[in-house]
């Protein structure tokens, strides 16, 4: 039988039972729609987290003291990272290009009668490059000022707004924990990252911080930037060797520090979010399966209802394959049309969610995959009813009331 005629007949018999067809399709619509939406949400979340990590800088390594504790409860943070460690890393590991010691804590910062509570960070000039900050106004403090333990500060844009409003803060004097600092620069906004807002901080020279504000000889962490094409594993091993030597650790002693690489973090996070995305998609996929069972159910009813028609078709010369194709086509059409409507729904829903402060990114490949699965389900669940129809005995089918 000619292909287009078969399609025309199938469409017509679907149109004859509009409500039933629509209800059957609903399973596919909801299934495909939710799969696409869930995958879009998962993918959007992954992209957001990854871009947050990337925004921290490029080719980052961070050395932190190792936590000690029992049963996962942190009870002490070792104070063992020094400025000397930072210098040694820069000097002895060739692939390390920039290093900045970092130490900080929350302090009250005031200007005249205004005050704000924010993170005061002691760091080196290189922090700007390592963490990919840009100066919006004024300048960063330089190495000379660092050596002098100068009382200079660079403000995050949020902090600057909180203290100065629309006034120009450059050259003004602020008070940090009882010490006068001159504002010399403002950072460009990077946007909050949830757990840490880089727009709300005050950068001061680490020397000033250690000796005059925090009174600490130890660093919170050492941030480093590697050369662009460095072998991360090799650099990590070299850093570990340098630090173990400096910390006088013997062979077999556990390290009292840990080094995180941005690359590893990116990999771990994207693995985790990918798994999460797949899980979301699989949960939504169950509704596709249920939709498929719905199609099978309705097709079985349809075959029974149209037993006589099948008998007539067989009597006038339809072979088993013709009948099989006709009913398969109806099932596949329902699932394909349902899948297409579901794709429209999923994309629309994803866009709607996207504008509600969530991030949802629809990937074309996911739409294609969801629709292919819908088609496959139509074929899988449509086969048995169609096979039953094809096997009907024409004499009994003609006699069926």
């Amino acid at each position, binding site marked *: 039988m*000619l292909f287009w005629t078969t399609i025309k007949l199938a469409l*017509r018999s679907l149109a004859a039972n509009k409500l039933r067809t629509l209800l059957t399709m609903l399973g596919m619509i909801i299934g495909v729609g939710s799969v696409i939406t869930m995958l879009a949400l998962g993918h959007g979340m992954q992209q957001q987290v990854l871009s947050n990590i990337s925004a921290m800088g490029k080719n980052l390594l961070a050395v932190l003291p190792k936590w000690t504790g029992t049963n996962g409860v942190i009870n002490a943070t070792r104070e063992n990272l020094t400025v000397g460690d930072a210098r040694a890393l820069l000097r002895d590991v060739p692939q390390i290009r920039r290093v900045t010691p970092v130490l900080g804590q929350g302090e009250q910062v005031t200007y005249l009668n205004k005050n704000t509570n924010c993170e005061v960070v002691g760091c080196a000039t290189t922090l700007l490059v390592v963490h990919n900050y840009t100066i919006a106004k004024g300048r960063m403090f330089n190495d000379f000022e660092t050596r002098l333990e100068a009382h200079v500060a660079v403000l995050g844009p949020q902090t600057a707004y909180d203290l100065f409003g629309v006034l120009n803060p450059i050259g003004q004097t602020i008070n940090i924990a009882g010490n006068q600092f001159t504002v010399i620069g403002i950072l460009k906004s990077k946007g909050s990252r949830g757990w840490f807002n880089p727009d709300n901080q005050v950068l001061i020279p680490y020397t000033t911080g250690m000796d005059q504000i925090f009174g600490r000889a130890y660093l919170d962490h050492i941030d480093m930037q590697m050369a662009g094409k460095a072998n991360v594993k090799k650099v990590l091993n070299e850093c570990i060797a340098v630090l173990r030597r400096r910390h006088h650790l013997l062979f077999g002693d556990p390290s009292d520090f840990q080094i995180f690489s941005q690359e590893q973090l990116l990999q771990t996070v994207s693995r985790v979010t990918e798994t999460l995305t797949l899980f979301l998609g699989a949960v939504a996929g169950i509704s596709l399966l249920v939709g498929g069972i719905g199609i099978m159910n309705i097709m079985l009813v349809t075959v029974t209802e149209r037993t006589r028609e099948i008998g007539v078709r*067989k009597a*006038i010369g339809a*072979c088993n394959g013709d009948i099989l194709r006709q009913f398969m086509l109806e099932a596949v059409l329902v699932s394909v049309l349902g899948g297409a409507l579901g794709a429209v729904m999923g994309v629309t829903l994803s866009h709607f969610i996207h504008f509600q402060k969530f991030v949802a990114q629809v990937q074309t490949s996911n739409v294609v995959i969801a629709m292919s699965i819908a088609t496959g389900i139509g074929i899988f669940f449509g086969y048995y009813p169609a096979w039953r129809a094809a096997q009907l005995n024409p004499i009994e089918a003609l006699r069926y009331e």
Partner: protein
Amino acid sequence: MRPVELMTQTAPAPARLKSRVGAVAAGPGLIRTHNVVKRYVVGGAEVRALDGVSVTIHEGELVAITGSSGSGKSTLMNILGCLDSPDSGDYFIAGEDVSKLKSDQLARIRNRRIGFVFQSFNLLPRLSSVENVELPLLYAGRHHAAAKAREALEIVGLGDRLDHEPNQLSGGQRQRVAIARAIVTDPAIILADEPTGNLDSRSGDEILKLFETLHQQGRTILIVTHDPDIAAFCPREINMRDGKVLRDGVPAASFAAKIGD
């Protein structure tokens, strides 16, 4: 080796082209069954629905198959219509042995060689007259199906009802569409199962007149009926009882005059 098979190998179905009405007595016959047996098992007991039926129908004949219910006439029609296969015996259509074919091969034979007309019309709802009539051609994969379907509808006198759906037609008109569907493939034989059973007598007479016309055009028609009046209208009657042919010949009472007036 059975003589019947030898015969078909030497003379493969030339009858159809040679003549339509004449030469009835000569040749192997358009349709020929030989000792056909069909058994059913009902409640553990074997019932012979057909018990050695041998009939020969020549091209251009108009034959009635009669008998009471349970006589085996429906079973014979199912086998003649290739809807069923005999348990034993042979069945030839135009020289081709069709008694041992598989279901898809039988479907092909039904499609090309046989036109069915049913008591309850059995048109497909939601399809127009033309679409119903062209269906066998579509299953045959033939081109210009719509044009041929229109032609067939003209023959049965429904040239003005081409796009009507079955529920917009009267019973007689529906049966005409069914007859158009039966003749559109130009089959070897038209099998009509109680074609007037669901019609009032006026429509029934019209349908019989249409069969008469088709018969005069040289088509081979078999009408299965329990109505002696319809049997009398046919030149030949095959009367069945208990799965056997009881009588085969000119009907007892001629009814043709009543139709012809």
